[in-house]
Structures are given as structure tokens and as C-alpha cells.
């Protein structure tokens, strides 16, 4: 529920509702790091809470962790440290969920951070390792495979 007005004692908040029906009451200043939510607040359609059917409670909690930190802290080094720890996750499914949530909620900083993390995960890996990491199926035809083999042999040739 958003409280109108004075803002002296209680800052305006908005309630975010995850796909598994967890409710998070969040200060607007924090929630508006998400452009998606910001537009909804501006359009005045946040009464009764904002349902986010694409984000689970677990992931939303992590997203809000990010937003809380970035809305509050101003020290660049501190934020960098936080970001680094934020994406230091062994669990790729969570990373996938975070990048999808950042995209859906349109949180620029978090999107940059998670996309860069994925790019960094790819660096230095062989083709097979990349496929394994992201569980991607090789769907090339045999002709394309031959061409790709030739390409890779050249790229890795010293």
C-alpha cells in the first residue's frame, strides 16, 4: 500500500507479490530501480500490490537485496565489492533466473552485471565445455560440423 503525502515518518512503499505469493513491502525508492515498477507506480496501478508472475519469492528476495544496496550505498568501491559477491554463485540456475528477472523488471545495473557474468563464464572455455555449462544441444548438420571443425582448428592453430 502506498501512503500518500507527508513522507516524514513513513516513506512511500509498494508491495511486490512473487509468483508463489510471497509479499514484499518495499520502499518506492528501492523498487523504482526497476523501470518496470517505476512505470507502474507512475501510472498509479500499484494499489493492492504489484503481482510479478515471472519471478519467484526466492529470486525476488535476491533482486531486492541488490536494489536495497544500490539504492542506499553511494560508495563505488563498496558497490563493486557487493556486486562481485552478488554474482559469485555456483548455481547457474539462479544466475539464469536473476538475468531473466533483471530483464523482466528492467533493472539496468543488474542486467549489465548478470550479462557480464555470463560472458565471463564463457571466456576460455572450449566449445564442448560451453555446451556442458549451459546444457545446449549441438544442432548442426554434418556439413556445418565439418565447416565448424575447420574453423576451430584454424582459430586454435598457433
Amino acid at each position, binding site marked *: 500500500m502506498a501512503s500518500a503525502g507527508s513522507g516524514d515518518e513513513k516513506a512511500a512503499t509498494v508491495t511486490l507479490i512473487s509468483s508463489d505469493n510471497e509479499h514484499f513491502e518495499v520502499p518506492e525508492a528501492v523498487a523504482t530501480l526497476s523501470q518496470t515498477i517505476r512505470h507502474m507506480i507512475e501510472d498509479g496501478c500499484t494499489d493492492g500490490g504489484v503481482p510479478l508472475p515471472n519471478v*519467484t519469492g*526466492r529470486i525476488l528476495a535476491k533482486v531486492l537485496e541488490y536494489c536495497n544496496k544500490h539504492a542506499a550505498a553511494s560508495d563505488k568501491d563498496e558497490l563493486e565489492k557487493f556486486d562481485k559477491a552478488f554474482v559469485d554463485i*555456483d*548455481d*547457474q*540456475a*539462479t544466475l*539464469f533466473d536473476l*538475468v*531473466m528477472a533483471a*530483464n523482466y523488471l528492467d533493472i539496468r545495473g543488474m*542486467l549489465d552485471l548478470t*550479462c*557480464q557474468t*555470463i*560472458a565471463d*563464464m*564463457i*571466456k*576460455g*572455455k*572450449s*566449445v564442448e*565445455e*560451453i*555446451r*556442458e*555449462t*549451459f*546444457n*545446449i*544441444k*549441438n*544442432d*548442426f548438420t*554434418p*556439413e*556445418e560440423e*565439418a*565447416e*565448424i*571443425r*575447420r*574453423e*576451430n*582448428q*584454424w*582459430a*586454435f*592453430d*598457433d
Partner: protein
Amino acid sequence: MPFRSMVRDLRESFGNISRRKFEVRIYHRGKSLGSSSDLQDGPMVIQQSRWASLPPELLRDVMKRLEEDESSWPSRKDVVSCASVCTTWRDVCKDIVRSPEICAKLTFPVSLKQPGPRDGVIQCFIKRDKSKLTYRLYLCLSSAVLDENGKFLLAARRSRRTTHTDYAISMDSKNFSRSSAGYIGKLRSNFLGTKFVIYDTQPPFNAGRLCSQERPPSRRLSSRKVSPKVPVGSYPIGQVNYELNVLGTRGPRRMQCTMHSIPESAVEPGGVVPGQPKELLPRLFDESFRSTATSFSKYSIADSSMDLSSCRYSECGGGNPQGGDAADKERPLVLRNKAPRWHEQLQCWCLNFRGRVTVASVKNLQLIASVPPAASAGASAQPQASVPSSTSSHDTVILQFGKVARDIFTMDYRYPLSAFQAFAICLTSFDTKLACE
């Protein structure tokens, strides 16, 4: 099976645990289920290919970051790796990567047959191995002239025959045979080493005109009837001639390079090189390539054993004197070596190599475009601004080649030449026998 139901249950539950950075997959269709130690790490879930459902704009964002971060070799191989993962990733990578003409970077092998940058040059070096008769082209990885650190690009091996010499050019540093997947073209010289022809395995934009006059019609094949035994295409895309200058052997030799695959208009403002390849095509035409063969436009295969002395190259490349404007535009680009100046005090011929060539050698050269003056009164139909002198706007050195150590030569090239063409032209400089006192 109990394990199957357990896996099904786990699928329902949220989250999965990975070991190190890799998801451990357990196939439930008869494949080994892994050791018990796998199960002790915690519940495993069969990974649906969630990453395959990553929205295209996010995949693109990730690939773009990777491509920008890995801008130079050897780390640029990551871009090639990404393009080898699956068709979706390949499409995105190929779309993101710009041609060398625009970004001055070499990425995929096809970059070797695409024109170099319009702004700046691509710096390479060639290592000669006299004992193995091979030459290897590398991309410079640093600006130091004698740094032997390079990314391998192409290799050539010389074979001398009775009437001519051949250089097989390959992107495989170990395999030069025509039947290998790496073979991408060759250079052939006449006996004296005064005339050379560059052959490409891929057709240029004017392939039909280039070859049709040289071959007897009976050997023409339409693309739909390519038989498995047909040799790979061999298109003459350029010709290099050497001659003594007016001072005989007392002066630097003159070299002229006629690029049939590059129209003269390419070096004019707004000009482009037409017919650029999108891929380095697979070499062999066999059963499995029937589907790709039908996508080629009709072409004819040149007989690579043609006799150099009987070649009528002036008729190749669409240079039809009655053709008018269209033919003029498609006149092949001619490159000439920049004439050195005689330096009275140093008593030698000098060219300004800007530090990229440090050892005097008759092989050293700089090639510039040789474009004739603007159209004469007869063909004044086109509203072209007349160029005051033929070379004033064409002083840019398109190819520079020269010695820096006993068996190391730098090669710098730019638009409209490709790395393959530049390499072939430099090879002629090694071979020609015309000496200079």
C-alpha cells in the same frame, strides 16, 4: 524404476545443485547413472535446457560483451567457440562480428578473404622456412616489428615444376594438399618468375566472365550436375607481372598487379568490392555437399593447367572496350609498386616504410592503386568529377611488404585487398628472379 521416479520428484522441487561450475547431467534413458558419489552431493535434477530459452536480446547482449572484451587474439578464439555451440549462437555471433573492412579485426576464417580496413591497415608478418619451402603468415599481436608473437593466418608451400612453380595456400599450417579442407587457393608462376596468376577456390563476382573465355565449352558444368569427382573451383582472380625498369637491372624492378576480382570502382569514393564470400566454402564437392552446391549461382570451373603464355588476361574481368560505362566500372583494379626515390647521399633507392621494414631488400615493396585519369571527352555521359591527376587521390599504400630479419618480413594490407590476396602477392616477391644491382 525407482530412480526414475526419484528424478521425477526432484524435477518438481525447486533449484538444483551443481558441482563446481558445471551442471552434472544424469540421463535417464539407459545411460549410466553415475557413481553413488554423485548422489551424495545432494539432489540432482535433470537440467531442462533453460539457457536455450534465453531471450535473443539477452543472448545478443552477452555475445556483444564477449566480442568486445575479446577483441584481439588469442582470446578472440572465444568468439569462434561461441559461434560453434549451436545454430542460434552461431547466428548471433555472425551477426555481431563486423567484417575487417569495418572493424579492422580478423575473426572467422572468412575474414581472410574479405577486404581489409578502409581506415588503417592490418599488420602481419611472414615467416619463411627455406628448408621446408614454406611461408607462414601471422597476424601481428603487438606493434613491435620483431616480435615473433603472432596469430597464425595462412601458410603456403612451394613446389617447383619444370615449366612453372606452384604455391599451395592453406589455412591449415600442416596440410597443403588440394584435397585438404584447409586449401583455399594457390599461386602459379611462369618459369622465369615474371608472370604470376593467383587462383581462388571461391568464385568472385565476375566468375562467369573470368573463366568462360579460357575453357572449352564441353567442360562447363552447371551447379546442379556437380559430380563427386569434379576438382575444386580454381578461379584466376589476379595476375602479377614483373619487369625491369628503364634502367635495367640498375634500378628497382617494376611490378604490376591486376586484380580481376576487384573492380577499379572499388577504390573510388563510395566504391565496394562486390561478391565477397560469407563463408569459406567447404573445399570438396561430394555427396554430402549436394545441398550446398545447388545454392551456388551457376559458375564454370577453370582448368588450372592453363598455359600462362596463352592467357588473354586483357579480355578477362569484363573489360569489354565496347561495353561503355558498365565495362569501365568493372575494369579490374591495377596496383603498381610505388617507385622508390634515389637517395643521393645514401646511394640507394628509398621508400618510406614508416618503420615497418628495416632491412634493405629488392623484395621490399609498396603497392598503390593505378587508376587512369577521368573519362575522356567521348564517354562524358556520367557526371563524374574529373580527377586532376591519376594518382593524386590514390596515393594510399594498399600493400606494404618488406624484410625485417633474415626470414621475417612484415606485410601490411588494407582495403580493397584481402589477407589471402595480399599474401599471394607477397609470395610473388619471393619468387621473382629479376635481380637488382
